[in-house]
Structure formats: structure tokens, C-alpha cells
């Protein structure tokens, strides 16, 4: 098993540290979820892991190969169709695999549409499809389901869980939603308010598919005990 090790210490933004002494390691195929209050520097951390931000002290070791990323906003090319948006990023994608991906995400009928014609929920699915189409070794998800209504967020979350189980990929998920983290992660990291530090690391042994709502509730209760300050 290959180990993806990422560790960096302290990133100084304006007026003090955003992140402090954050060090963690994810095993190959492991899904790590970071949960913390909004504005605590989760996105900053992801940008560093993704290599978008190089102004920090420390080191990040990424697994070799492609990175797939889902930003907070879909960030699609509005002047290209859904199909082209994915093919431009993943030119060597296998046609059958792409069709399966579109099917899983319920996008099969939207391939010829432009992003402007899609609802936010659909656009987020396209962004998800794009991240999976590159067959990433590292998948980075930045609050992928925010500002969606609850039922839709739950459905997309389940679709994501299915995709991750089908093709194991080292995944880094950032969210402020404990439900989401408890449903998706193999390992939970609780972050403090800014400057963000890791308060606790909670491994989850139960496989994703077997987690019932009751298990997730129990998990959340256990986490709430460890993180008394978060609301």
C-alpha cells in the first residue's frame, strides 16, 4: 500500500497564521475529512495541498499522478458543453467509463448542455464528474455540496460515496457538515477556529456502505464529546 504523506507547518497570511502545526498522513485509498468552523482556513489548507498556494512553511508530499479537485463553486467553462468541459480536462477518458460516470451522476441527458443551462446541483455534479474523469490519485473536495438543499446534498453525497468505493482514491474532503464527514470519511480530523489546528483525529472502521443513520448519529455524538466548543 502506498502512503500519501502530507505535512506542513504554519502558513502565514496577513495578520497572523491561518494554519498552525497541521500534519497528517492519509493511506492510499483513504478518505480523510476535515471538519471545522467556517473561516478557519480549511480552503487555505486545500489550496496548499493542491499546489495552488506555495507561500507556506512546511512540505506537502502528494501521491504521483493526476489530481482531481472539486472547488466550492463548480468552476466549469461556461462556453463549453458539459461533455467538452470534461473531455478538455480528461482527453484520454475511456468512452464507456465516461458514460458510466454520467449515468451514476444522473448527467446522461445533459451532456450537450452548456453550464449556464444547468442548475447549481447539476453543475456541481459535472464538477464531480470532471474530478473523477481524470482518474485521480488524489481527490480534493472543498465543501462540494454547500448551498444545495438538504435532500439533494444527501443524494450527491451518496453518489460520491459510491464513486469512491468503486475506485478507491486517496481523498481529502473539507466540510463544516459533520453528517457529511461521518458518512464519507475513513478518518475524521477536527479543526479548531483560526488559526486552524487539528484538535482530534477520529478513525472510522465501519465501511462506508454499512453505515446506517443510527451509526452516523452515534459517530456524531462521539465526536461532539471530543469537540465541546463547536456548535
Amino acid at each position, binding site marked *: 500500500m502506498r502512503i500519501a504523506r502530507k505535512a506542513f507547518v504554519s502558513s502565514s497570511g496577513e495578520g497572523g497564521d491561518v494554519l498552525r502545526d497541521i500534519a497528517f498522513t492519509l493511506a492510499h485509498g483513504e478518505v480523510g475529512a476535515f471538519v471545522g468552523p467556517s473561516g478557519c482556513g480549511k480552503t487555505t489548507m486545500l489550496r496548499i495541498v493542491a499546489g495552488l498556494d506555495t507561500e507556506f512553511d512546511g512540505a506537502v508530499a502528494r501521491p504521483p499522478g493526476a*489530481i482531481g*479537485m472539486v472547488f466550492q463553486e463548480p*468552476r466549469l*467553462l461556461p462556453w463549453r458543453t458539459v461533455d467538452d468541459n470534461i473531455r478538455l480536462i480528461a482527453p484520454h477518458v475511456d468512452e464507456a467509463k465516461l458514460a458510466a460516470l454520467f449515468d451514476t451522476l444522473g448527467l446522461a441527458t445533459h451532456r450537450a448542455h452548456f453550464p449556464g443551462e444547468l442548475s447549481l446541483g447539476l453543475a456541481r455534479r459535472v464538477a464531480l464528474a470532471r474530478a473523477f474523469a481524470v482518474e485521480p490519485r488524489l481527490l480534493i473536495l472543498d465543501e462540494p455540496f454547500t448551498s444545495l438543499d438538504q435532500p439533494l446534498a444527501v443524494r450527491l453525497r451518496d453518489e460520491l460515496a459510491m464513486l469512491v468505493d468503486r475506485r478507491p482514491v486517496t481523498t481529502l474532503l473539507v466540510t463544516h457538515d459533520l453528517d457529511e464527514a461521518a458518512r464519507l470519511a475513513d478518518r475524521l480530523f477536527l479543526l479548531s477556529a483560526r488559526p486552524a489546528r487539528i484538535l482530534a483525529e477520529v478513525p472510522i472502521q465501519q465501511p462506508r456502505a454499512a453505515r446506517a443513520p443510527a451509526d452516523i448519529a452515534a459517530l456524531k455524538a462521539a465526536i461532539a464529546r471530543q469537540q465541546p466548543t463547536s456548535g
Partner: protein
Amino acid sequence: MLRLLSLALFFATWMLGASLAGEQMLPGPVAVASAILGEARSGALFLHLGATLARVLLAFALAMTIGTALGLVMGRVPAADRLGDPWLLILLNLPALVVVVLAYIWGGLTEAAAIAAVAVNKLPTAIVTVREGARALDPGLDEMARVFAMPRWRTFRHVVLPQLFPYLAAAARTGLSLVWKIVLVVELLGRPNGVGFEIGIAFQLFDVTRILAYALSFTAVVLAIETFLVQPLERRASRWRLRPA
């Protein structure tokens, strides 16, 4: 249609003006049309129109290519912007006539000097427009292209260029009309053919009919380029906007 009505009003005003000022000062549409026909029959019209059009297209292409490249660099690299800005200001405020005369003195009465002079006149406005576009590029899409390791050329073609397109279209619009007006000056001063050259001769003879015949013919050519080339291209490139959500 309102456009047609407006055009009819233009011709009516023209005819009225012609009858008031006399054929010598302002020949009517019929006289000008027959002059155009006469020049077309002798082939001279197409020769001169062709020469002017070739110069317009060459100078336009040159200015747009260099202007896009420089504008892009200046819009994205602050140091290049500070370095290039004074030059840009000088170029912007240099009168077209000065550039043309200097080009002919330094380069001789050659085709290269003529086209370079026109291109230099168009260049600064192209740079300024494209620079605005480059400053407005979406950093989010840029990051997306970087994370997914999109190759440079593909990023330029599919991420950067579509964002620049409205600015390029604006530069092309104003550029085409500016370029053809300066080409006429260049031809008047130092070329043995083209619409500007013909107008120069007509000026010496006070032949208003011929001046109008050539001017209107070329205006028609520019309008045709605009309607059949620029507009369809623009529609095609912005079709993602037109469809309702």
C-alpha cells in the same frame, strides 16, 4: 423595418441636398451609382478596392496579433505593464499622420512601410482593449486549469481565449474602421493604387462624384465584412450565452 426606413431617409436627404447644392458640389445618388458602375466596368474599381482591402487586412492582422500578445502580457504581468505603459501612452497620442510620414521617410515609399505605419496606428488601442480583458480573467478558472494540469496551449485556447473574446471583438470592431481610414491616408501620400490614391486624384480634379463613388464602394465592402464575417463569428462564439437557462 426601421433600418430600411432610416436608409431611405438617408438617400432622400442626400437627393434633397444634391438638388440644393447643385450637381457640381454634391452629385445625387444616381450620378454616383453610374460612376461606380463605370469604374466597375473598366475594372479599375476592383483593382483599387482589392489593393485597399489587402492593405487593410494585412495591417489589421498584424496589429491584432501583436496587440493581443502584448496586451495579454501587460494585463497579466504587472512589471510588464509598468514597463510598457509609457510607451503605450506615447503611441496612443502620436498622430496618425506623423507615423505615416515618418514611416515613408524612414522606410521609403514601400508597401512594407505603408502597412507598418497603419499597424502601428492601430496597435495601441488593440493593446489597451486586450489588456483590460486580460485583467478581467477569472482566477478561479485559472486555478482549475492548474490543478488539473491542463497543457498550456489547451488552457489558452479553451480557458483564456473565450474570456478574451468580447474584448477581441471590440478591438476588431473599432480596429477595422480605424485601419481602413488610415489606409486611405497612407495611399493618398505614397501608394500608386488603392481607394486613397483614387480619391487623391479626384481631389486634384475636384471630382466629387468619383470621391463619393470610391468612398461608398469601400464602405459597402467594410459593411459586408462586418455583416457576413464579424457578426456571424460573434454569434457563434457567444452561442453559450444566447440559450436560455
